[in-house]
């Protein structure tokens, strides 16, 4: 790791608007992050491989290659948190971005503090590994080892999906509303966009459920939210 001792993490900024990108690096530096800028979509994946960031800030409209495609490509090889920067808050754009693998999104114009809060929330989880073993449905979770296994076979989850699953598994008796999940997993103070939760629960289910249409691990409680399915492993 080439990371400086005082740095909180490395952020790759992928945005074609040079003034905004520069402003972002200024703000990030003030907040204690290292950062690098990439201005083209078709160079983004290479920059990602070279820089090995802890988090990616990704604009959706890029020259060379669409932000959605960049997001999919990064996600196919890495679970690094991706925060989208979008100018469109319309449902369809946000949902397409989230479905392509982004963990969170910020709508322009955003307040710098808001952005930094999101970045911290996504990076913070790397800091305190706790030795803890949980079960949910027929899955075993090793929190410190960051591993989810079914019958000894490991299932690959992104950090965010892992956090979501751990959050539900820690309190299997509790029904989590979307707002509570937003606060605990994403670090939102005020209730924001519950579509975030819906999309990520769908993505999580597609990886861990036997039949995503009839989920047994992450169960929907109609009109309230989600809860963990009954544990099927011997304690």
């Amino acid at each position, binding site marked *: 790791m080439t990371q400086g001792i005082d740095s909180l993490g490395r952020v790759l900024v992928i945005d074609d*608007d040079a*003034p*905004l990108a520069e402003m972002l690096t200024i*703000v990030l530096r*003030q907040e204690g992050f290292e950062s690098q800028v990439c201005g083209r979509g078709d160079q983004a994946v290479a920059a990602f491989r070279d820089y090995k960031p802890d988090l990616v800030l990704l604009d959706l*409209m890029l020259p060379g290659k669409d932000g959605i495609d960049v997001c999919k490509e990064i996600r196919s090889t890495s679970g690094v948190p991706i925060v989208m920067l979008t*100018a469109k808050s319309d449902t369809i754009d946000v949902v397409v971005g989230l479905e392509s693998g982004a963990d969170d999104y910020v709508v322009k*114009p955003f307040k710098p503090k808001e952005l930094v809060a999101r970045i911290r929330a996504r990076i913070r989880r790397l800091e305190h590994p706790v030795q803890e073993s949980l079960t949910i449905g027929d899955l075993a979770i090793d929190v410190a080892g960051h591993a989810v296994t079914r019958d000894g076979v490991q299932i690959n989850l992104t950090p965010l999906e892992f956090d979501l699953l751990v959050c539900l598994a820690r309190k299997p008796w509790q029904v989590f509303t979307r707002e509570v999940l937003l606060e605990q997993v994403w670090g939102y103070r005020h209730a924001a966009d519950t579509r975030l939760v819906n999309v990520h629960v769908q993505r999580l289910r597609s990886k861990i459920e036997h039949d995503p249409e009839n989920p047994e691990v992450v169960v929907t409680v109609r*009109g309230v939210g989600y809860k963990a399915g009954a544990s099927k492993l011997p304690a």
Partner: protein
Amino acid sequence: MAGRSFSGTLRRGLTFWRRSVQARVVASTVLMSALVVSVVGWFLLQQTRDGLVDAKVDRAVAEAVTDVNDARSRLASIPGTDDDAAAQLQQLVEPMIGRAGSRGVSVVLAGPVGAEPLDLDSSGVRYSEGLDLGSVPESLLRHFDSSLDQAWAFTRIEYVEPDGRASVPGVAVGSTVQLPADGEYYALFLLFPMDQEQDTLDLVTRALFAAGGLLLVLVAGLTWVVTRQVVSPIRMARRTAERLAAGHLEERMWVRGDDDLARLATSFNQMASGLQRQIRQLEELSRLQRRFTSDVSHELRTPLTTVRMAGDVLHDARDSFDPGTARAAELLQTELDRFEGLLSDLLEISRFDAGAAVLDVDDVNLVDVAHRVVEMSTPVARQRGVTLRVTALSEPVLAEADSRRVERIVRNLVNNAIDHADGRPVEVIVHGDEHASAVAVRDHGVGLAPGEAAVAFNRFWRADPARARSSGGTGLGLSISLEDTHLHGGWLQAWGVRGEGSQFRLTLPRRAGMPLRHSPIPLVPSDVERRS
């Protein structure tokens, strides 16, 4: 059961009658034709009968004259020595009965006349066998009380029972003959039946009825065919119009030939093409508008983000600036907030205008919404010296709605109330029933002048142009709220009186898509209503 099915049939029949031009035209044509045919038929029948009867009467009278003359000459040829009147009468009447009987004519001889009124019941009457004497009309009998001239009358010829012949209409001709034996006059009645004429008349009647009936069928058929030719293109036009209205804009009518109906079809098609073109144009415009909105949003937001961040950096560092520059950084910050709010409101409005706004419906508890909004607005309210209070039941007041939009509506109403409360308390009332849920925001500030309740939702409208908007309103909040409410099929209404304050009420249907009939909260606050 039978009654119900009958009334059902009747109703169906009436519906068909009301809906079908064809049925009405055919029916009225047939009715009028029937009237004309009946009048003509009746007239023809009348003429025929009169002609037949006149001819018969003429013939009967002529025959009677011949017969009576025959009888007279026979009487004259009898030697004058014989004075047995009864025998003479016998001689007179018997050959007549014989001859007349072969022609179907009946004979009655009575008399003598003059001395006393004729009476057919007396024994001296001689007549054809089987005849009922009542067949001789009374008027004809009385004629001979005063006259000896020939006379005739219509009658109905009856026959006595054993004979069995049916009665027929006929003509009775009466004459007098003088009997040489006693010099007295005797009345001689000849009764001519008109059965042949009756048969002819029956035949003519039947023929007329048959012809009239056939004529009516023909008229009905013709009318049906003709109206069908006119009505079927109209029906086609109706079906085409219905399909056009249902959104099948490519639908056109069939044009055949060059007549009026073909021209109707052509005009109809031109109209449809015009409409289609207009709608396409509007759709294109709306698409462009949406594209523009989205482009503006991206193009404007990226530089604004940079400015915003730069402003924030300056704002955070303002302590190290001289007072003037520090104040400038603060102003930059607040005005950026305002600019940002205005931009997002404008984009929201243009999204509504483009019809691009979509609902994300879920069960929303309006009590939670009210508490959340009040909690978030409390800092601003405190700055203005306004206290906020929520009045709601403990149980949830639910509505199927888009929580983001509903919260925005309530927030706008509360901010608006804080702006106009003049430091007096603002109350948020939540109430609902099984049909509708409502939130009302009541302030006790300046209120609204008459007529202002209607324009309060207009874009950039200000109650008082000189008034400051210190809570950062953009002037679009209430307009957006109204659009949001309409999207839900709800109501957003304002009440206000100068000096009494105002109340804004949001009413949403309990279930999405349900029509609203009433609101659980009165628009005029109860304390004001009591006083007035």
